[in-house]
């Protein structure tokens, strides 16, 4: 059979491309260990080493990917991201970030202990629900985070940092203009409610 030499490389290419994609996605779990993520975020991505570190299990893949990219580029530099996490992400490529994000999205999120205090009413009336959805679990866009069941101290820091402008990467430009509707005193009950979402 005659195979046009110009077509043959394309056929090989197609095979390679098909073979490459699934192998990468499956690497997410391995990468989560190999790149050292487990040390701070816990083996199940639900058991952070310290107060104020985020839970990652069940996070929107698109959001998790964007945050990794932004921390690596320096676009997100609030809290521990610049000093602690950026050096680690400097060793992670974008395809690896994609694989990590896809893996994290498949993990079960940690259910909280149930409704808490006045926070739910604030969550419903301060426009939080419009973007993050019922109980913080149904964000309106893939680039927005799921925040139900998130670590409380982490939620507090992010709300404060977005309000103050210390965190201004990505879609925080959608949240910052409404944060003046939430007082410092109201941030705490909102975080309390979200951290305890079942």
């Amino acid at each position: 059979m005659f195979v046009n030499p110009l077509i043959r490389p394309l056929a090989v290419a197609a095979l390679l491309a098909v073979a490459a994609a699934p192998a990468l996605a499956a690497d997410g779990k391995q990468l989560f260990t190999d790149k050292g993520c487990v040390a701070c975020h816990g083996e199940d991505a639900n058991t952070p080493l310290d107060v104020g570190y985020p839970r990652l299990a069940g996070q929107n893949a698109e959001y998790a990917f964007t945050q990794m990219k932004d921390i690596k580029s320096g676009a997100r530099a609030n809290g521990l991201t610049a000093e602690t996490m950026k050096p680690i992400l400097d060793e992670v490529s974008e395809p690896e970030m994609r694989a990590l994000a896809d893996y994290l999205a498949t993990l079960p999120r940690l259910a909280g202990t149930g409704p808490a205090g006045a926070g739910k009413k604030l969550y419903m009336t301060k426009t939080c629900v419009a973007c993050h959805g019922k109980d913080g679990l149904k964000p309106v866009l893939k680039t927005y985070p799921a925040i139900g069941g998130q670590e409380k101290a982490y939620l507090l820091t992010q709300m404060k940092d977005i309000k103050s402008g210390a965190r201004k990467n990505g879609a925080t430009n959608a949240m910052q203009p409404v944060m003046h509707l939430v007082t410092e005193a109201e941030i705490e009950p909102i975080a309390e409610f979200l951290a305890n979402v079942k």
Partner: protein
Amino acid sequence: MKTIIRAAAVAFVATAAFGTIALAGPRDKPAQGKSVGDKDYQWNAGGGEQDEALHLKPDLKNGRDVYEVCAACHLPEGWGLTDGTFPQLAGQHNKVIIKQLADIRALNRDNPTMYPFALPDQIGGPQAIADVAAYIGTLKMNPEPGMGDGKDLEHGKKLYKDNCARCHGDHGQGDNAKYYPRLEGQHYNYLVRQYQWIKEGKRRNANPDMIKQIQWMTERDTKAVLDYVSRIKPPADKIGPKGWKNPDFE
């Protein structure tokens, strides 16, 4: 050997291309439209969903359902927030609502907070734009909009007459046919923000004539003229009773 290298090179390119396709899809935003100040920018160029929506027969019942999304911020009454975070939509001209909504979702006007709620998968296509604009048209206006400090109204009145009235009308009523918004009864802080963004070119779908018209105005002028116009009472038949709650959302 050469063939192998070439195959590998093609494979690399192909993988990159496949990768791109895998990353693309529904999450992609449309390309950003031209901005005021760009070469060939034309204010109110029309076309697209704006024109489609204008020619559709609105369905008020669906408009009410679409508006439920909007109500989370603009409130069920369409009164917005008096602090200006969200503008009053009630009383606004049909064509203005259609144009601005179409512009926001076509990325001709930046509004990151509202953007997701303007998307077709949230509210629907051009028919939904026509429907929700018609529904907003049924809402009566907030009788107590946010205002400025009221200290410089005479100055504001003169500025308004000389600089704004030609397009926005002698009492801030705007002009539906020309897509000029109603300003009377709009929250002062919202007017200040938009005015500032128009002046700086940050409001990308702004009318270049207005940008020129307001360039020379000082901070005092700005406050005075916007305080003046926010205080003009719209016609009585357009204003709702104090404390009115929209029964469609109870």
